[in-house]
C-alpha cells in the first residue's frame, strides 16, 4: 500500500511539473469572463447559465486531463524507456499501474476541488449582486450545496475515464489510446440509445449486440445529474449510491484488466 501511495504521489508531482494545473487559470478566466458577460448576453436566469457553464467546464476540463494525462501514464514510461528502471525495482507491475491511477485520481481531485471553489466564488458574487426579491424566484439558491452532488458524480465519471485511458495506455501508443478513450467516452454517453435500440431495429441479432454493448460499454449516464441539480430537483441517496457502486465496480474491472495486460507485456 505504501508503495502505491509513493507512486501515486510521484505521478501527482509529475502532472504538476507537466503544468496540468495551468488549466485552472483557463477555468478561472472562463468563469470570471462568463459571470461578467452573462448578464449582457441573456435576459434572466443568469445563475442557471453560470451553473450550467461551471458544471460543464468541470466535466470538460476534467475529461481532457483524464484522457491526455491518463494515456501517458504508462505509455510515456514505455516510450521514454524509463519503464526498464521501474520494473527493475522491487515493485510489482500491479503496484505501478494502481499507483499511477491513484496519482491521476489525486490530480483530478485537486483540480475539481479548486474548480468547485471557483464556481461557488462566482455564484456568491452573483448572489451578492442580486436583490432578495429576484433571488426568491430562483429555482435553487445560488450557493446550493446540491451542486456538490453533481460535481461528485462528475468526479466519479472522471475516475472511470482515467481507468479506460490506463487500460489502453498499457498496450497501445499514446495517440491510439487517446482516440480509443475518446471513442469510448462518447459511446458511453449514448448508452440510453443502445438500451432502446430494439425499438428501431427488427433484427434480433442486432438487438442482442446492442444489448451486450449497453452492458459492456461504460454507462456514463449514471453520473449525469447536472441539469436536474441546476433546476433544484433532488437526487436521491440511492441513486448516488448506485452510481458510486457502478463506478467502483467498473473501475476495479478496468484496473484488473490493465494490470493483467501490463503484467503480460514483454519489454525486451
Amino acid at each position, binding site marked *: 500500500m505504501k508503495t502505491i501511495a509513493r507512486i501515486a504521489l510521484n505521478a501527482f508531482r509529475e502532472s504538476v511539473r507537466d503544468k496540468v494545473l495551468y488549466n485552472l487559470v483557463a477555468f478561472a478566466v472562463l468563469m470570471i469572463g462568463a459571470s461578467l458577460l452573462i448578464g449582457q*448576453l*441573456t*435576459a*434572466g*436566469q443568469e445563475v*442557471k*447559465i453560470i451553473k*450550467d*457553464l461551471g458544471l*460543464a467546464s468541470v*466535466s*470538460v476540463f476534467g475529461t481532457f486531463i483524464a484522457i491526455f494525462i491518463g494515456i501517458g501514464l504508462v505509455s510515456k514510461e514505455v516510450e521514454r524507456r524509463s519503464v526498464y528502471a521501474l520494473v527493475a525495482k522491487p515493485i510489482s507491475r500491479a503496484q505501478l499501474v494502481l499507483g499511477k491511477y491513484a496519482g491521476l485520481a489525486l490530480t483530478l481531485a485537486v483540480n475539481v476541488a479548486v474548480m468547485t471553489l471557483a464556481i461557488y466564488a462566482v455564484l456568491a458574487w452573483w448572489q451578492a449582486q442580486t436583490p432578495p*426579491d*429576484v*433571488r*426568491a*424566484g*430562483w*429555482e435553487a439558491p445560488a450557493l446550493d450545496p446540491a451542486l456538490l452532488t453533481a460535481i461528485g458524480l462528475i468526479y466519479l465519471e472522471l475516475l472511470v475515464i482515467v481507468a479506460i485511458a490506463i487500460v489502453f495506455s498499457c498496450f497501445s501508443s499514446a495517440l491510439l489510446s487517446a482516440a480509443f478513450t475518446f471513442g469510448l467516452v*462518447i459511446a458511453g*454517453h*449514448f448508452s440510453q*440509445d443502445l438500451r432502446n435500440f430494439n425499438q428501431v431495429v427488427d433484427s434480433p441479432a442486432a438487438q442482442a449486440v446492442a444489448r451486450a454493448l449497453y452492458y459492456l460499454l461504460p454507462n*456514463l*449516464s449514471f453520473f*449525469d445529474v*447536472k*441539469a436536474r441539480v*441546476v*433546476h433544484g430537483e433532488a437526487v436521491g441517496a440511492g441513486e448516488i449510491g448506485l452510481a458510486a457502486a457502478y463506478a467502483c465496480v467498473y473501475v476495479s474491472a478496468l484496473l484488473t484488466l490493465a494490470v493483467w495486460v501490463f503484467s503480460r507485456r514483454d519489454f525486451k
Partner: protein
Amino acid sequence: MPANRLRPPVTVLAPLFVVLYAASGGLSALRDTVAPRDVVRESVLYLPSPAVVSRLALSYDALAADLYWIRAIQHFGDTRLATSGPRRYELLYPLLNLTTALDPKFNIAYRFGAIFLSEAPPGGPGRPDLAIELLKRGLEARPDRWQYMQDIGMVEYMNRHDYRAAADWFERASDLPGAPWWLRSLAANTRAAGGDRAGARALWTALRDGAADNEWLRNDATRRLQQLDALDAVDALQRIVDGWVARGAQKPYTWEALVRAGLLRGRPADASGTTFFLGPYTGTVDVGDESSLRPLPADLATPRSR
C-alpha cells in the same frame, strides 16, 4: 561564446511580438476598409433537429440549451433593431424549439419566448399560435407552472383577442397550487369586459406585480403600461386640440401655440421623454415617431389619420 549570448533578449522579443501582433490587427482593419463586406450573411440554423442536437451535445444538453437561448435573444434583438430590409424572425421559433427541447425546464425560454413570438410586426413575428404552442410544451414539462397558463391567457387576450379563451386560461391557472388570488378576479373581469384598455391595464399590472423576481418581465410589463398611458394621453390631448381648433385656432397648429393659449403648461411628452406628435395642418395628436414606446398596440389605439 556563452550560451545565453546566443539567445535573443526578452527586451527585444516582447516588443517585437507586441508590434507584430498589433500590426496583424491593423492589417485586418485595413482590409475591412479596402474591401468592406456588403453582403449580410443569412442567418442559418445549422442543426434543425432537436434530437440530433441533443445527441451531439452528449451530456451537455443544458449548456447547449443556454447557447441556443442566447442565440434566440440575439436573433430577436438583431432583427428587431435592423434598419434595412424586411424584419423576418424566421429562426426565432426553431431556436426556441431547440432550446426547450434540450432543456425542457428552461423557464424563461418559454415565458420570454412567448412574448417575443406573439409581438406583432415589425416588433416581432406576430405568431401568437407558436407562442401558445411553446407555452403548452412548457406545461407538459412543468404542469405545476400557473405562470405559463397566465401567459397563454395573455396571448389569447392581447394578440388573439379571444377573451373567453383568455378567461378560461386565467381560471385554470388560478386552480393550481401556489397561484395568486387575483388570477380568479382577473378571469372574472376578462370574461365580463375584455378588449378595452382598462382590461389590458389590469393584465399588465398583474403581470408586473407578479414578476418581482424577473427584471426583464417587469420592465416589459412596465413598458406596456406606459404605452397604455401614452394612448390615454393622446386621447386627452386630442380633446384639448379639437376644442382649441373649434374655437378658431390658426394653422399651423403647434404645441407652443397651445401653451401660449394657456391650454397646456408645456410641450407634452410620453414616458420615454418624446414629445407627442401634433399634425400642423390636421390637428391630429399621436405618439412621436421617435418614441421608444412604438410600436403601439394598434387594437387599443383610437383610429385617426394624420
